[in-house]
């Protein structure tokens, strides 16, 4: 799946948790991804982050890091 789409979607999830503290938001985003994203999408997202250059916001990036390894 395209890196651009995955990054856009995870950033969007993170932005919508702005009412939480960063730590809480990271947990919520990671949980949301696990609950609603197919494993292949998570793998692609993690791979995109590992490859560098994924333009994730801070909360999204920390949430993706929590997912590893998928």
């Amino acid at each position, binding site marked *: *799946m*395209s890196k651009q*789409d995955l990054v856009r*979607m995870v950033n*969007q*999830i993170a*932005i*919508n948790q*702005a*009412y939480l503290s960063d730590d809480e938001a990271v947990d919520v985003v990671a949980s*949301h991804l696990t*609950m*609603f*994203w*197919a*494993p*292949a*999408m998570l793998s692609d997202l993690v791979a995109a982050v590992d490859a560098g250059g994924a333009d994730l916001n801070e909360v999204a990036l920390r949430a993706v890091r929590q997912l590893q390894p998928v």
Partner: protein
Amino acid sequence: MTLLHEPTERRAVSATDMGTPAVPGELTVEVEIDGVAVTVSEGTSIMRAAAEAGIDVPKLCATDSMKSFGSCRVCLVEIEGRPGTPASCTTPVAPGMKVATTSPKVDKLRQGVVELYLSDHPVDSCADGACELHAMAQTVGLTDVRYGQEGHNHLNIEVDASNPYFTFDPKACIVCSRCVRACDEIQGTLALTVEGRGFESLISASGTSFMESECVSCGACVQACPTTALQEKSIIELGMPTRTVKTTCAYCGVGCSFDAEMRGDELVRMTPSKEGGANEGHSCVKGRFAWGYATHRERITSPMLREKITDDWREVSWDEAISFTANKFKQLQEQYGVDSIGGITSSRCTNEEVFVLQKMVRAAFGNNNVDTCARVCHSPTGYGLKQTFGTSAGTQDFKSVEESDVILLIGANPTDAHPVFASRMKQRLRAGAELIVVDPRRIDLVRTPHVEASHHLQLLPGTNVAIVNALAHVVVTEGLVDREFVAARCEDDSFADWEAFIARPENSPEALESATGVPASELRAAARLFATAPNGAIYYGLGVTEHSQGSTMVMGMANLAMATGNIGRDGVGVNPLRGQNNVQGSCDMGSFPHEFSGYRHVSDDTVRVLFEDVWGREMRADPGLRIPNMFDAAVAGTFRGLFVQGEDVAQSDPNVNHVTAALKALDLLVVQDLFINETAKLAHVFLPGTSFLEKDGTFTNAERRINRVRPVMEPKTGKDEWQVACDISTAMGYPMAYDEASQIMDEIAQVTPTFAGVSFAHLDEAGSLQWPVNDAAPQGTPIMHVDGFVRGKGHFVPTPYVPTDEKANRKFPLLLTTGRILSQYNVGAQTRRTSNVEWHPEDLLEIHEADAAERGINDGDWVALNSRVGETHMRAFITDRVPQGVVYTTFHHPESGANVVTTENSDWATNCPEYKVTAVQIRPANAADPLRVEVAT
């Protein structure tokens, strides 16, 4: 004089007609009618009391779906101790009253009245037995008419056949006003009137033809007409029905019950059922009349195959089609992995068909790559209401609106998309309830005959969350929270967090005014009106869900309802108006890739074990792909095979060019449908589906009402749709078999707690049931969360407003929003194949006069509509319904392809597409210009 016919059939409306409506109340009155004692509620008419005693008082202008009128003078009775012969329909009972419905005096009067009617009534008008007047002549014992038709009469007036579905023949009209009253009291459109006085009185569609009038063709007038003055063309052409099958409409989420009236194996009329809980005898133009698509010449009834989508279709046997499909799916999984295939269920199919298809994916495919078209409409409803209330469904029954004092209508256009519920809502508004409309467009309910919204918050597209936050801000900061309700019913902690959040200055109407475009003072007034209403109800549609913050908005509305104490009783609640007939059901049945039936996550070990025990296959604990994810994966080459049940994703889903590219990338696309739709044009296998007239099963409407769908004819394909999924599954190595659809519902009940008490037998007995149906609520649950929320305490969720990325800019300075129109349904596959196209032959682009003038566009001109993802062409319709800067269109016709321009943006939580906000530009164009231009990005 031979002006009489002996009727062969009476119209269905008369069969159980009590003459006047029931009068609710606890006080009762005992009367004696024709020597029979009967006790009825105070205020009941003599006519109805007689009917309840089993005595049918002759009548023409009275019917129990409308208020008594006292026009025809046929229902005269004598009352002991009272002079004269009053009309029984307009005379209420009184204690101890003794009534004679028949006597020499009364009988003679009635005969005289009916005889006079017949003297100006065409003799041949009831040749098929459809005329109550002639039936009444027989009832009152009229054997001869002394007056000829040579005198002054109405027999030379021309028939109005302008409406495609019914005729108006003034010759047969007795001016009883039943049609006028039906248009007023049932439909609420007031398109009909009585013009002239005395003998010159005529029923008129406001001085013009029916087709040119305000008539919405709901058919209430036709059903109400006691003669053949208003009559279905199908009855004229095919004759009166000879048998009736009760079933459920296949159009919108209102889920109207109908009597399918048959003549042999041919459907001749659909009459809305008075016993139908959702519609109580009313219908719209689609449900009552637009069923001809089921036998349309373009319908495909045989399976077809082709190796490549550039090949011609080859008609094959069911065995070959199923074998080909199963083998190809297996081959793809062997080559590309178990997750390389999936399926999409349809909200136009029955619960049983949907359940079996998702079972095929989970058990035979061995993955959770199943999703439903609800993904692109109400998936945020599922997410938002589950988070806050604990279950993914609306809280009320439709009847609840009759107790509402203030209705907050957000992003919904019920008079077009849910017309039968709209009529119910209009009745309540006309009776005094107040209305707040939140919509960028001036929908009909903002101002329509006898209805005017107290507030129209005409927000900019994409700012729903800002609006709901501002409303809640006023509630919290002006001391309007229902503290007692919140303390008793909601979580202390989450309420405290939400209260602190919503009270922040950035959520004030003043702070958000520039974003929303709604004056702060107007918004504050609306908030106060809603919060202080004894019963405040929220109704919403896709104008809420189809946004980048669709789920946030659903939670915002739930917060508002809880904070104002508007949950758990009649007249209140949070009520999604579902688009398709079985959106609720398809979601209930486990169509989402992360949930089993009953909204239980696939990672729940206990639930998974339950399914594994019943289905005998190991279930995956990880969620599968959603529809947009499937398309992305197809383009990426990792998703290779897709089964599409009764959907046209190539027309209905956003960014059609992307969807088309995805479908073209598949090695196997299987489409099960009635017609070769836009998606099927890209398919390798076409499996013919069944229309609702052939289905045996259930639909679940927007109020969680499970209605039976009963076949009125055998499947024209030779196979039930659920049987096809069973056969493919079996051919793939997972045997699946049922003898009949009721067994599928039995299995649904076995594995789904909210359906535990549902069976076809129970439904047939009860008529319909609203889930949950279980030991605690064996007859169902009309109102949810009465004593407590499904999740226990109500959960508040802070809802920060995050502006969409889709913004108007110099290149694309206008915002496009999309919607539906009354006569058409979704992608139009059904309604475009009926006479409904006479009302809407093409999609139009609504544009404000100033925006049109700026671009040199005149009304009716062809325009090119382009966004960053595509371009399409349609005609302009200049109107002040839309504000400057906003344009609007419908998506019913593939030729205009509105979704060519909608984008990949979606709800953050559910990926529900952001159909309602697309930045676009418009320029004059020639009709001959190529359509659907893909824009390189």
